[in-house]
């Protein structure tokens, strides 16, 4: 069951690399939130109730509902549906993402020699997810997509902190701050200003400052 969930999580990232529909990215974010929730619930049944509640709010509330809903609103209001003209074609994105996954698993099984207490599947998928998130940020142009890519990076980090059992509660809770940080920042900057200043939420519109 746990393995199935993690593999499903990895597949969503391959879908991200393949698609150019922005609503697709956002749906993937919501789906990943649910998957993370299920993972926490199935893999750590012995957690304290308070901590479990906190993680449920984080994964289901924040990652699954609030951020995707917010991004979806921005997308619908601005009438943008596709990522036009990414820096590299989608086909190559998929190829690179597949290579990233191969690398992730190579690293995970290689690292087994050095630390027996690591869960290789978690580790491999999380490393691949983080790298694919960075790939999305660097190869796409829309600001909304950048935020979505950052959230995927965060989900990968969440998965990584699940990969290690010992400092689990502390590190996971610290990682939640990243989400809150992103939330405040989105509300403060993205919603109020970017929309009114730029007709399109394109990173291309933000390239005046240069040398």
């Amino acid at each position, binding site marked *: 069951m746990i393995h199935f969930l993690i593999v499903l999580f990895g597949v969503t990232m391959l879908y991200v690399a393949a698609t150019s529909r922005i609503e697709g990215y956002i749906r993937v974010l919501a789906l990943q939130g649910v998957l993370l929730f299920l993972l926490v619930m199935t893999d750590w049944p012995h957690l304290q109730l308070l901590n479990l509640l906190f993680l449920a709010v984080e994964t289901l509330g924040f990652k699954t509902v609030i951020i995707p809903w917010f991004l979806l609103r921005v997308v619908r209001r601005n009438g943008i549906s596709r990522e036009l003209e990414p820096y590299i074609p989608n086909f190559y994105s998929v190829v690179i993402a597949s290579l990233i996954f191969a690398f992730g698993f190579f690293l995970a099984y290689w690292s087994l020699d050095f630390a027996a*207490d690591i869960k290789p599947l978690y580790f491999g998928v999380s490393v691949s997810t983080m790298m694919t998130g960075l790939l999305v940020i660097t190869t796409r142009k829309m600001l909304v997509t950048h935020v979505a890519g950052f959230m995927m990076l965060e989900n990968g980090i969440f998965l*990584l902190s699940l990969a290690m059992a010992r400092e689990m509660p502390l590190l996971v809770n610290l990682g939640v701050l990243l989400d809150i940080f992103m939330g405040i920042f989105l509300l403060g900057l993205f919603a109020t200003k970017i929309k009114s200043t730029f007709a399109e939420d394109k990173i291309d519109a933000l390239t005046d400052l240069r040398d």
Partner: protein
Amino acid sequence: MLIAILMLFPLVTGALLLALKSKTANVAAIYTYASLHLGITLALCVRPAALAPFFRVDDLNIVFLLILSVLYFGVSLYHGDFLRHSHLNRRWHTWYAICLLLFSFSMTGVILSTHLGLLWVFVEGTTLASAPFIYYEGNKAALEATWKYVFICSVGIALAFVGIILLSMSAGDRASLFLDDLYANAGSLSPFWLKLAFPFILVGFGTKAGLAPVHAWLPDAHAESPAPISAILSGTLLNTAMLGILRVYRIMDLAGQAAPARTLLLVMGFLSLFVCAVFVLHSRNYKRMLAYSSIEHMGLIAIGAGIGGAGMFAALVHLVAHSFGKAVCFLTAGNILSLYRTREVSGVRGLLRVDRLTGWLWIFGFLAVAAFPPFPTFLSEYLMAGAILASGKIWLLAIFLLLLTVILAGMSHTILRMVSGVPDPALQPQRTPVFNYIPQLLFLAILVILGLAMPDPILGLLERAAASLGGGR
């Protein structure tokens, strides 16, 4: 107790300011916190204290705290007049003051943290608290700079977090994330995970410190934010991120993994010098030129730390010297901006005729960051060159000197063009208020004293800090 005051005062005062919404109260709060911060820091220099278990003054962070206090105090003097003439309405004026309090609060937090996770949280806090300042002008360029700042630093901070998770894996059950614990048990950390963790933390905190190749936010943010904020960003914010790097470097050193860490520091350091050398040659915007110079100096500090030994001491001297020198430059750039109303180099001519003191401050500020004697940057770069030579890498020294010469040529060309010549006759400059000179004069006086005859207590402070990082003189 002292540390508790230091940490609680800005939070309580911030809440009060929000309730009062009075411009006088805002300025008074900034002044009060600056004086309080300086007083407490001086007391902590004499008698180090701790707020167990999360905050403590030690041999290393006292240097950073002292720079922050003195610089923040000087910049507050500048802020008085700056805020009187700003275009902000009462609401935003209040938020400006609150963000300034929170900004220095979070930087103090980074400096005093004894726990790596807590340190990371405070670094995140500095981004949140300082982002509104970059949007100060409220136009499209300001928005772009703010967006880049927040987004690039967020990605950086996320990568640093990955590094901390990997470090925690390396510690396993043998150590918590408290720095003391990590230092004490460094020998038993798993080298594999440690070596994997360091690049993430270096790139993550390096983003915040403005090290190339992850410096992209820095020129925009420094150019767009108001002068006193640029001074704080360059003079103290970059330092605090550097402290995070140095803390983790020490773990690597104690764990016997110093070699890869040093190589990475050197690579990023030299890349930073290179980036600055490329862009400074034809800079059109004088605030961007100063920002690129900050990248250069952060690179120099990374190089000093990467060389190790005597280089570590040189890096710390350089840290102090750069903070005050760059603050002089950015504050004076604020004067120039209000005289000429442009950030373009081409719009500024005959600075010495328009405002003699500002012109001389601009020249001396430049000399202070360009490592001319009697300023301490000369001392530190000299020591650094000596340390590189002692490490036996003569080709590295050649590149080092070549890049520094190019940067010097580029900057001096721009500076001399600005101060000399005849000003545009249509220009109607207003008088610069006296408080827009005093902080720069204060900082220059500090620098000259440090450069000519470093007082023994300061020397001792820097030596102990270098020793705590495994370096010597």
